[in-house]
């Protein structure tokens, strides 16, 4: 134990002891060399790890993005501002929202907005698919963000039963069991999913438009998203309603209306008729 300590102490003493033997000039020279070496190391490390020195204010846009920028500067700039940086009190910044968000908002006609209100409504789209893609490309190249997979059919690989379970857990609270939509607070709402395309549903899950939460790929894997879309498109939209007219699938409220408007009205007329026969 003590011998270990002694040996260690001896080593330190040896290191400390040596400079005392050196001359003053050599000591100065050594300090200068060490400083130079440290500076070189720091500078070298900086050049290795620091971002590229060639960063420019405006990166060159692809041709599609340039077309998109032209469209943006005509139709979107009023609210979203120059370079999509947003305008206070009018429209949010689009930096980082990604192509998925643009495709959802523009292809469903929600953007351009008709007026400022609680929530944007679906309406006939203003831009063609081509123009929508260009706008999306522009926003994507401007700030990155989530992107959609290729193709218009995003559900044929999905498992309908698994999608149904995921839909009931994640979506039916707001969009309702039949995907007809439902109310949220203060005039906001979860829209009906009946007019939505595969890409729009996928984009909505990725980007979480308006009041919808984001279902990123770590919450719902891409294959689970395909399951959900398959359930919506195959079951909810194509269900033949084996029981007859579905009364809008609004649950017991329209059923209650029907029993009075159809059942009671018919039977009151029947009783008028029967009592009149005397």
């Amino acid at each position, binding site marked *: 134990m003590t011998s270990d300590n002694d040996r260690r102490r001896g080593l330190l003493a040896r290191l400390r002891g040596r400079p005392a033997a050196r001359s003053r000039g050599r000591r100065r020279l050594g300090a200068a060399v060490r400083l130079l070496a440290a500076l070189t190391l720091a500078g070298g490390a900086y050049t290795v790890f620091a971002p590229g020195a060639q960063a420019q204010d405006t990166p060159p846009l692809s041709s599609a993005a340039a077309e998109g920028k032209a469209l943006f500067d005509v139709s979107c700039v009023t609210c979203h501002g120059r370079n999509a940086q947003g305008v206070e009190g009018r429209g949010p910044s689009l930096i980082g929202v990604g192509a998925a968000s643009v495709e959802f908002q523009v292809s469903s006609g929600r953007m351009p907005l008709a007026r400022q209100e609680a929530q944007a409504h679906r309406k006939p789209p203003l831009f063609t698919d081509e123009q929508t893609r260009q706008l999306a490309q522009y926003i994507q190249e401007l700030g990155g963000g989530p992107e959609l997979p290729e193709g218009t059919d995003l559900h044929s690989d999905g498992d309908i039963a698994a999608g149904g379970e995921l839909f009931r857990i994640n979506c039916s609270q707001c969009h309702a069991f039949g995907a007809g939509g439902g109310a949220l607070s203060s005039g906001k709402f979860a829209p009906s999913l009946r007019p939505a395309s595969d890409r729009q549903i996928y984009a909505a899950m990725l980007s979480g438009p308006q009041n919808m939460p984001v279902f990123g790929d770590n919450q719902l894997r891409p294959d689970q998203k395909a399951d959900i879309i398959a359930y919506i498109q195959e079951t909810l939209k194509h269900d033949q309603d084996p029981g007859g007219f579905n009364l809008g699938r609004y*649950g017991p409220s329209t*059923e209650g209306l029907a*029993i009075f408007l159809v059942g009671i009205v018919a039977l009151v007329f029947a009783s008028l008729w029967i009592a009149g026969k005397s």
Partner: protein
Amino acid sequence: MKRRKFDLAAAPGKAAVGLDDRFQVATPLRRLLNKVFPDHWSFLLGEIALFSFIVLLLTGTFLTFFFEPSMTEVVYDGSYAPLRGTPMSAAYASSLDLSFEVRGGLIMRQMHHWAALLFMAAIVVHMLRVFFTGAFRKPRETNWIIGSLLFWVGFLAGFTGYSLPDDGLSGTGLRIASAIMLSIPVIGSWLTSSIFGGEFPGTIIISRFFIAHVLLIPALLLALISVHLGLVFKQKHTQWPGPGRTNGNVVGERMFPRYAIKQGGFFMIVFGVIALMGGLFQINPIWLFGPYEAWVVSAASQPDWYVMFLDGSTRLMPAWQINIPLGDGYVIPPLFWPTVVLPGILVGLSTLYPFLEARHLKDYRSHNLLQRPRDVPARTAVGAMAVAFYLVLTLSGANDVIADKFQISLNAMTWAGRVGLLVLPPLAYYVTYRLCLGLQQHDREVLAHGVETGIIRRLPDGKFVEVHQPLSAQDHDGHGALEYTGWVVPKKMNRLGALGPAIRGFFYPIEKPVEAPVSPGHPPVEPRPERAEISSGSESRH
């Protein structure tokens, strides 16, 4: 040997004699078959409820053959692909099989559900008829109470039935019911855990609700309905006032054959309407709601319409929680007031109403004649107030669907409900009261001055007056001598026979009307005398 001839025409009579010889039924049966029932369309509303109850028993029995009231977990392997491979309770799986596998199962399930909605709707409509016409007055208070109990027992029957399929909607409703029971001070926790056999949802509730739904509650309903009908029979039906009708008689049709045939026909119509609705309108698509899981609650999860007023009262209730600093602290949650106290008050008020009214009016006589709503403005106005209150609550129960589909803010709907609940009932009271007085006044006016003939006469001084047809001889003031009796007063000349008899028939004439007029009492209407063209003289022509 001579063969005896069988006389077919005499067979029924002989059989009847044989029966009477053995059982001595002719005398009581004659009394029964000759019993007279008054005839008015509004007296048939209660029958709608009775007949839908019969349809409920028939379709419900069919459903029990296939339904499995168990919460054992199974994996679905039926023909509905979107749920295949999903774990669920045996109750839900058998409900799915009922809908997709059993032949005719879906229409039976839908008829059962529509019949349940119709049963409750007819009870309410019948109750409104009884209320607004004063049919609940002495001696019929007991039947009024039984009728109100029938609503609440029907409410329980509906709720237990709604819970049985164990789909997402049923489970959500059950969860709310358990929360309501938990909110009752002191006994709440014990009540809930004794009903659910522990913590919600437990494993026993479906079997318990099943036996309540198919045995206990229907037996209670059947008993109440029997007493209800027995009392109508014993106390005789009320009738409208009118010529020949007094407090001491019943004017109408004999039970047999006319009344019985009419009732039989009406049962067929009710059955037909329910079957049509069951076949044409989809009700409660349980396959879309999926199996109940505690974490699955769909938007637009509402109870059936007759429970919706409780949902509405809960939505309108502000979050007023009462903390009582006793021991570890005690809480009365806001849910307690709209879902336990409010229905309690409603049951109490509705059952006691006949006694409250009699006490208020100091009227303890027996009444067998009905009153027109306009003749008792205060009662009619109270009824309108109750209807307004119930409507606001029911609409608020669906306020999220209304808000979404009509694009109104949900918060605005809630506040409209809160304000409406306080403002609309008094407004309904006032408006109804004034309407009743106005209608009464018009009747009195006709009795005093006669029916408007539509003939305008110009007096020599240039004044225009309308000619009235008096209903009786007039005194020197030109006023009729008829008393206000609270019955229909003719308001149009053809009610007095001026245009000959009215054409009979509901949608089209039963028989070709004879050339009017037919009665010798009414001379033919003479053609209008020729009149000179009115002109202002020759100078007007240019």
